[in-house]
């Protein structure tokens, strides 16, 4: 199935903006609506745009299944390591040890409505990034597998 050059050019122009929006949603997950799952789904929709605009054999040169599988595994491993890192300090599994006064993401937040401060949240932004990486990998693997049966001539 061959798309017209209008579709291809639009996909090329829109792809970086979709990536930027997805990264914004992931990184601001602890301040605004959104988070790892939603941002990962937006990134995967950008991948789907590329897959639909080009031929399957062409687009798999850019979107490789091996890369997506390793992204998925990396995200899940990073999530579990971030959860396990609290146990090295003697606290429980999933304890948010970075939150009040840690080196990274450690600003103290007062109760009530306030302005957005990116340097807060402790382990939550790290887990958001890990889950975002895992979700974009998983959805891309599913899309690649489901689209692999498409016939070239319709």
């Amino acid at each position, binding site marked *: 199935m061959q798309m017209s050059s209008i579709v291809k050019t639009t996909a090329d122009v829109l792809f970086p903006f979709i990536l930027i929006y997805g990264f914004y949603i992931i990184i601001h997950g*602890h*301040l605004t609506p959104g988070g790892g799952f939603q941002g990962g789904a937006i990134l995967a929709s950008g991948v789907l745009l590329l897959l639909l605009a080009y031929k399957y054999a062409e687009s798999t040169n850019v979107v490789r299944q091996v890369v997506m599988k390793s992204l998925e595994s990396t995200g899940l491993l990073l999530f579990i390591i971030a959860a396990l890192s609290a146990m090295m300090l003697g606290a429980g599994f999933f304890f948010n040890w970075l939150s009040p006064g840690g080196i990274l993401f450690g600003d103290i937040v007062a109760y009530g409505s306030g302005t957005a401060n990116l340097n*807060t*949240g402790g382990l939550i932004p790290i887990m958001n990034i890990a889950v975002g990486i*895992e979700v974009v990998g*998983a959805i891309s693997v599913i899309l690649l597998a*489901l689209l692999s049966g498409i016939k070239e001539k319709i």
Partner: protein
Amino acid sequence: MRRNLSIIITILMVGMLGVIVTGLTFGDPGEHPMDRYFIENSQIESGANNVVAAVLFDYRGFDTLGEAAVLFTAALGVSLVLRKRRDD
């Protein structure tokens, strides 16, 4: 015969849902101590302005771990079922 049974089962399940739902009022969930605790303490304890993110990644972290594992397993299963075969 089978079609009539399907319609009867549908009506029964919808009726059960209706019986559950009639006791609830929209817009007034009542007093929930757990949710009030999350709203009042999530900023101080976990430092996140978004209470849903704090619940998802801090208070109920095991839930999210299972969710990520389910997504991983689903991607694994789909790529296993639809893998390329040699013979076709």
